[in-house]
């Protein structure tokens, strides 16, 4: 009987350690106080020579935010709206006063992304595709930063891991024939990098938003 009990306890310990993320968390009080429901992704500032980098990152960043429970403004349309108003440079767009963004989009928060590294480099014999992003989320009511983070994804990290993660991410995004010429490795790695950066599944990412069943579940569990 004792052995059985020990076995069960060990199993619980194993199950808990298997599920728990090893990452430290951050002070999320500002985020929780702001409690955003909708997020406006602004065109990213691109510190790399790859001109397609912002397209790729913008197109992939919406998914982890939506899956974390936020309404994400349609990135294509948002980009077009800025262009129609004479704003074509990301630095200029990211300098637009928050009150103006709030007035046009009615968004709760805006995501300011900077692309630090993007693309393929050849290290002696093997090639690597790497995407490094930094970002901050700003409350559009008062201009306060409520979250910030950085993340890197690379095709060279444990290949099996990357492929597994990508399979998970891309499982419902099987590329139709029409897009086969458009997608590329950088686009795939961007999916991984944005997910790692933003997803509420990640302790360093955002907290869950109101459209997720996980919204405020964490506190509810801790409160018991």
């Amino acid at each position, binding site marked *: 009987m004792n052995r059985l009990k020990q076995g069960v*306890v060990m199993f619980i310990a194993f199950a808990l350690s298997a599920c728990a993320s090893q990452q430290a968390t951050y002070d999320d009080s500002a985020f929780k106080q702001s409690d955003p*429901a909708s997020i406006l992704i602004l065109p990213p500032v691109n510190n790399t020579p790859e001109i397609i980098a912002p397209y790729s990152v913008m197109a992939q960043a919406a998914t982890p935010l*939506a899956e974390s429970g936020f309404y994400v403004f349609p990135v294509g349309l948002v980009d077009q709206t800025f262009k129609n108003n004479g704003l074509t440079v990301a630095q200029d767009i990211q300098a637009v006063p928050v009150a103006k963004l709030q007035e046009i989009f009615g968004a709760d928060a805006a995501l300011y992304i900077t692309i630090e590294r993007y693309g393929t480099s050849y290290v002696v014999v093997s090639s690597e595709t790497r995407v490094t992003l930094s970002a901050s989320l700003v409350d559009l009511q008062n201009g306060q930063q409520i979250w910030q983070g950085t993340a890197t994804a690379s095709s060279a990290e444990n290949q099996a891991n990357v492929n597994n993660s990508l399979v998970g991410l891309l499982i419902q995004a099987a590329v139709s024939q029409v897009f086969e010429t458009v997608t590329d490795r950088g686009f795939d790695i961007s999916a991984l990098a944005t997910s790692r950066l933003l997803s509420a599944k990640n302790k360093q990412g955002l907290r869950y938003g109101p459209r997720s069943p996980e919204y405020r579940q964490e506190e509810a569990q801790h409160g018991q």
Partner: protein
Amino acid sequence: MDKVITALALAVILTGCTSTPPLYYYGDYNNAVYSYFKGGEVTVQEQIQALETTIEKAAARQQHIAPGVHAQLGMLYFETGNADRGTAELSREKQLFPESAQYIDFLLTTRQGGTS
């Protein structure tokens, strides 16, 4: 005591590692947005077709369509000069996601849904 431990074990099994199903169906949305940004490689008509198919598949799977899909489709219809379908798709986005209301109203009143 044993019962408590067993209950705990069950709770862990049931809630600990469940992978939650996705909230939305995205289909070709990300690909369509990427190709829209890059321009030239995939025609607007092909992008429209891909998004229409994505919406049909979401319905067939009884999954919610991802935020932004109807709005992106609406913008593409505006670009082809089809303002009626453009307006209808933008309105659908607003209906599904009331968070977008202020922006969609701005687009519809300033007629900036497309290149107009």
